[in-house]
């Protein structure tokens, strides 16, 4: 088999076969490479795209990145149905099968330990957004003072009016922020009760997500499969708790946020 080896995940041997028509990166069906009692899920990829130079270039192309990420996730999703895979970072590529085997040997203990920890668990992502204020019907401005006050003619008192308006806007903004934080804190606390482990991530990049509003909470929760339904219901129940806030749930994911060695 020529070409390079793209490794999606490492898992314990699982009985249920993967769907026959499952494809991954490059439209290629993944195969299982078994070594030392561990399974590496591997796909063959062309060298002209995945050697260091072309790969580096591709990784700066958001379109290519998006296509590859979705194809990659397709495989991880299929794995998550039948097992609790240890997902690898995007574009972990080896020269050939022996390279993959060497990697497994090198990290055998860590893999076994992590797989034990993650067995039977999935990750749920919860984000809280503060909806944008529409005080003057303008789209949200980048400055924290909210919409700009309408330009005033230069009469006496207009300078003070401006300050007053700005002051009121800031107060409103601060109160909104406080409410959002309080809500997020309470939500995180109650969700943590159902989760074995949690991670708070940095607020998501607004430019990339183009999600309206400001991301207040961006958290991941490690939940045993058996608890997932209750977890989702709990998130659903928060929908009436806070006006002006939006809660987004994603999942179930493989335990991306909990795969690290320091986890």
């Amino acid at each position, binding site marked *: 088999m020529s070409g390079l080896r793209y490794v999606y995940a490492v898992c314990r041997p699982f009985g249920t076969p993967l769907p026959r028509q499952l494809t991954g990166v490059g439209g290629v069906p993944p195969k299982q490479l078994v070594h030392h009692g561990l399974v590496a899920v591997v796909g063959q990829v062309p060298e002209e795209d995945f050697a260091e130079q072309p790969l580096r270039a591709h990784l700066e192309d958001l379109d290519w990145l998006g296509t590859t990420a979705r194809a990659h996730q397709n495989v991880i999703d299929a794995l998550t149905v039948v097992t609790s895979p240890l997902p690898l970072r995007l574009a972990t590529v080896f020269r050939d099968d022996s390279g993959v085997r060497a990697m497994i040997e090198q990290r055998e203990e860590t893999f076994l330990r992590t797989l034990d920890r993650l067995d039977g668990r999935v990750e749920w992502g919860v984000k809280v957004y503060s909806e944008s204020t529409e005080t003057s019907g303008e789209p949200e401005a980048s*400055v924290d003072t909210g919409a700009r006050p309408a330009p005033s003619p230069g009469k006496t008192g207009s300078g003070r009016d401006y300050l007053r308006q700005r002051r009121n806007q800031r107060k409103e903004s601060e109160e909104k922020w406080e409410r959002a934080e309080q809500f997020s804190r309470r939500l995180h606390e109650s969700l943590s009760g159902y989760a074995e482990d949690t991670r708070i991530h940095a607020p998501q990049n607004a430019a990339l997500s183009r999600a309206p509003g400001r991301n207040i909470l961006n958290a991941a929760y490690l939940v045993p499969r058996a608890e997932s339904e209750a977890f989702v219901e709990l998130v659903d129940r928060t929908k009436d708790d806070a006006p002006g806030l939006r809660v987004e749930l994603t999942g179930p994911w493989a335990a991306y946020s909990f795969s690290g060695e320091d986890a």
Partner: protein
Amino acid sequence: MSGEAPKKAGAGRSRLDLEPDTVERDLIKLVLTVVELLRQLMERQAVRRFDTGDLSEDQEERIGLTLMLLDDRMAELRDRYGLRPEDLNLDLGPLGPLLPRE
């Protein structure tokens, strides 16, 4: 800033179009971002002092007018270079954005 628009496709517009000149536009963005940062800081200071009653009526009026004019001027400059308010920001990586997003 010269009054001559660069010759290129669609150069019939009277407004200076800096679109193709990324380096210059990036510099302008950077400069305006810094100015915007200062403007926000000053405004925040002024509002705080206004709130605590630290200023005389006359000071409030003068400072308020100055800030208002500054705000208008920033809007003009943004418009001139086709920049939206959210364009004036810097991503400091792990430190987050320079200016608050809202």
